[in-house]
């Protein structure tokens, strides 16, 4: 086999090794590249700030363990912005993992919550998982308190002050979903945004953002955090750069490795095609 063929059929484990070494090196020796902020992230941030004081936000934590690396930083920064603001919010979830993920971050931010003076039951509430996807989104939007009878800690909904005059999607000032896929953006668009016209902002995986662009440019989605890059921008906007910002240089390195491999792979492919053509002609 010619050297070119050997390079092309290189064992995939060598390619893996290159990725591990480059990412580890950049993590240990960060460069500190600047992170320009995109308008879709800014609009996500503004959507929360521009709400009148005391308005209630519906926060859908719609992802599970597998998506934590990219969506966890978005949830953490969103909770930080909400706790620092004069807004109230209700956390619910169309994904089984939602309540556990929310609990982990509420525990992590315990100190910040106490210093913000926010009280559970009056300023924020955690509700349990509702199965059904499309039907769950519709049931919550149409008749909130009949779909969820208790909060996550077992207290009946009619004994929770914050939920007193919340009955349908119309009673919320803003809908946020931080989601890893189905059920997620499309279900909310069909059962919350189109029927009730609620303002809608989204924390999306990098892989999903391109699919949601038609809804962002049409205005159905007001603001959107696009993948870990968006999360880093949002951390800067919220004023607490943490894991997403610290991953940016490694993300850049990983992207460069991928692009180089694409170009290299094609160069080898084209060289072999021409060398074979000369042999024929």
């Amino acid at each position: 086999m010619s050297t070119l063929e050997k390079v092309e059929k290189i064992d995939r484990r060598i390619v893996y090794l290159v990725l591990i070494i480059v990412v580890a090196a950049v993590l240990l020796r960060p460069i500190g590249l600047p992170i320009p902020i995109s308008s879709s992230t800014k609009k996500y941030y503004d959507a929360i700030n521009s709400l009148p004081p005391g308005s209630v936000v519906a926060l859908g934590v719609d992802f599970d363990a597998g998506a934590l690396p990219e969506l966890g930083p978005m949830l953490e920064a969103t909770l930080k912005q909400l706790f620092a603001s004069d807004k109230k919010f209700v956390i619910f979830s169309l994904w089984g993992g939602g309540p556990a993920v929310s609990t982990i971050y509420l525990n992590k931010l315990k100190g910040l919550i106490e210093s913000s003076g926010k009280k559970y039951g009056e300023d924020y509430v955690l509700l349990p998982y509702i199965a059904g996807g499309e039907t769950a989104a519709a049931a919550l939007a149409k008749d909130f308190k009949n779909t969820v009878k208790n909060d996550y800690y077992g207290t009946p909904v009619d004994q929770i002050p914050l939920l007193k005059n919340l009955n349908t999607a119309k009673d919320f000032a803003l809908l946020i979903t931080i989601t890893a896929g189905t059920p997620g953006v499309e279900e909310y668009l069909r059962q919350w945004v189109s029927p009730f016209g609620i303002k809608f902002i989204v924390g999306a995986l990098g892989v999903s953002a391109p699919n949601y662009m038609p809804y962002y440019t049409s205005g159905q989605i007001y603001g959107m955090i696009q993948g870990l890059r968006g999360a880093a921008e949002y951390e800067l906007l919220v004023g607490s750069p943490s894991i997403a910002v610290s991953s940016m240089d490694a993300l850049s390195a990983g992207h460069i490795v991928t692009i180089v491999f694409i170009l290299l792979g094609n160069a080898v492919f084209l060289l072999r095609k021409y060398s074979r053509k000369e042999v024929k002609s």
Partner: protein
Amino acid sequence: MAISTDPSVWVAALLTIMAYTIIYKDNPLYKLAEHILVGLSAGYLFIQTWKMIYNSSLLPLFNGSGLLFGGITLVLGVLLFTKFSKKYFWLSNISIAVLVGTATGLTVRGYLFAQLIEQVKASIKVVTALQPLDIFNSVLSLIMVVCTLAYFLFTFEQKGALGWIAKFGRYTMMAAFGAAYGGTVMTRLTIFIQRMQYLLFTWLGLA
């Protein structure tokens, strides 16, 4: 910063390494890691789902606050379990029918507005007052949407004018799938980077 002394971090780090052994090749350690995940995920989901059934279906039935609703949903839910019997498995179709019918009705009416009418409205813009570049982008976008939709016409051969329109539609989709590929790279790298950060910093404390 020294190596972590938190036993929880050690549990997570060792399980991470166990799962990464598949990079070299599939092996018993990876299979063990995979089956631990299956067990924990199944048990976790059971609890969250049972919590919803208990709160929204059983409790209202017992404390009388929702006799009818609790009763009906309990019956429909239990009927699903007839799937295991050779003779009465068709009873489960009654519950599935209610679920499928409701979900289908919700999906059809939802797609009609959120995915069809709203998207048509978004392509119809008044461009007369816009900047030249915006006019170009708006008109180009409209053409691209129309060509992409025309590609999915199935009872007309893609020849002649329709051939060109469909080809341009397919090229537009290639740009969209390219963008999706770009997004996939970011998401997949992110998960890997976060695992490296966990091992290097949280566990080994190298930073």
